[in-house]
């Protein structure tokens, strides 16, 4: 399932007018879509709770895998086209440029999530699957940081992404449980 979207994405990009710096354009597009799809994927669980419509959970995996496809293409283009597989430069980049360090870290966190996205793995891991997939939170956070540290001066979109992530994470805090606890304790007076 992983390779299909990758090819589709690659052809899509090939068809567009990428301008004078196509490599930069491809990196920007793939990075943007990876982040957007990751954030949209993070909307699913809160939406399920809000609407009570369970079947919505099925798109979460699709979104996640598409995000991973875009992230993979982003990484591939960086390694192969941008850096020409010049490993000494790549290693130096990863070690010395914070935005690349966190970008790499974000991708690495997504790998086990993509691998274990199948039903087979869900069964095999059971309860631990849920725990493992919490890695999407730091992965998303690092991706936003990667974006924020990459831009030269115009931090508008990275900040929008940061705020969106903030909201989506806050949506997961068990507010109701706290409120319930509050009213219970005040009720015993």
């Amino acid at each position, binding site marked *: 399932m992983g390779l299909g979207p990758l090819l589709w994405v690659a052809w899509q990009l090939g068809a567009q007018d990428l301008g004078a710096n196509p490599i930069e354009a491809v990196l920007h597009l793939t990075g943007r879509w990876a982040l957007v799809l990751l954030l949209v994927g993070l909307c699913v669980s809160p939406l399920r709770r809000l609407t009570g419509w369970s079947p919505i959970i099925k798109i979460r995996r699709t979104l996640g895998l598409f995000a991973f496809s875009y992230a993979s293409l982003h990484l591939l*283009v960086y390694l192969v086209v941008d850096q020409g597989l010049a490993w000494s430069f790549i290693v130096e980049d990863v070690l010395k440029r914070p*935005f690349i360090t966190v970008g790499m870290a974000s991708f690495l966190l997504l790998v086990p999530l993509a691998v274990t996205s199948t039903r087979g793995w869900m069964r095999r891991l059971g309860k631990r699957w849920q725990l493992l997939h919490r890695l999407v939170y730091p992965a998303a956070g690092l991706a936003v940081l990667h974006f924020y540290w990459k831009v030269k001066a115009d931090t508008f979109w990275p900040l929008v992404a940061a705020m969106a992530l903030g909201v989506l994470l806050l949506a997961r805090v068990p507010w109701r449980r706290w409120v319930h606890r509050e009213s219970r304790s005040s009720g015993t007076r």
Partner: protein
Amino acid sequence: MLIKKPGSVPGSDIPASEITPYEVYLNRRRFMGRMARAAVAAAVTPGALAACDFQGGSAEAAEGLAAGDAAGGGIGGSSGGRAQEDALTPYDDVTQYNNYYEFGTGKADPARNAGSLKTRPWTVTVEGHCERPGEYAIEDILARFPSEERVYRLRCVEAWSMVIPWLGFPLKDLLTWVEPTSRARFVELTTLFDREQMPGVRRPVLDWPYVEGLRMDEAMHPLTLMATGLYGRELPNQNGAPLRLVVPWKYGFKSIKSVVRIRLVEEMPPTSWNKAAPNEYGFYANVNPEVDHPRWSQARERRIGEIRQRPTLMFNGYGEEVASLYTGMDLRRWF
């Protein structure tokens, strides 16, 4: 615009070598196709990339365009051992891939939005420590200082670069004419700041208006150009019409666009990018592969139109001409 052409017959048309060669246009489309196929090949089998002849692609572009080097003033700068060609960057790329934040922060924004820039009437105010301060109409400046062609490399701090056939006159000529006094140690230049014409300035991405500066000896250097055109035509708005600075041995942000004021000052002037991020952008901003930007390397660059990155040259390859300006200076401290 008066164009001084060394060796050309007065009154003749712009020579054919200055018109964007058709091969350039073709090469660009071929390059796109290659990029697309490479991306797919890379996605499926990284090994396939080796089979794609990229060096061939850029050599093709180079041989089709190397003729451009022969026109006019030549490329200037002769640091020995430059293995790769400096082919002219296609006109479309020069005019559609720009950093001009007053018209938006995207690379395509200036070309899209700079139509609102009014380049006539245009006045350049000269003030400060000089004998001939005043407000000079652009027409008078163009008449007094005839333009000639200069082919320069331009290296952006973002690590991409171009080769551009500018038209312009040495800043030195203008400065000599206004007669700086002994108190003039720096030249400060300012861009137009107009909320009506420049949609991008409504956002405080930088502290408007855009200001840049040079030390007096840098400003008086023969390479320092006040550009009035490119590719034999008037400057497009997005490239800094009607008058902009080009300092080829420094990062591109020093080459300030759409100049409205030139001030001769005693103290080093604060400059826009240095104010925005003092640890990232210095006053001197000499191209230096040994001093990295805090967030990315400056050792290599992407020449627009090429796929492989190329090594960045000290002073952008103009070391022979300008290194003497900085003898004894710690270029890591004064970055």
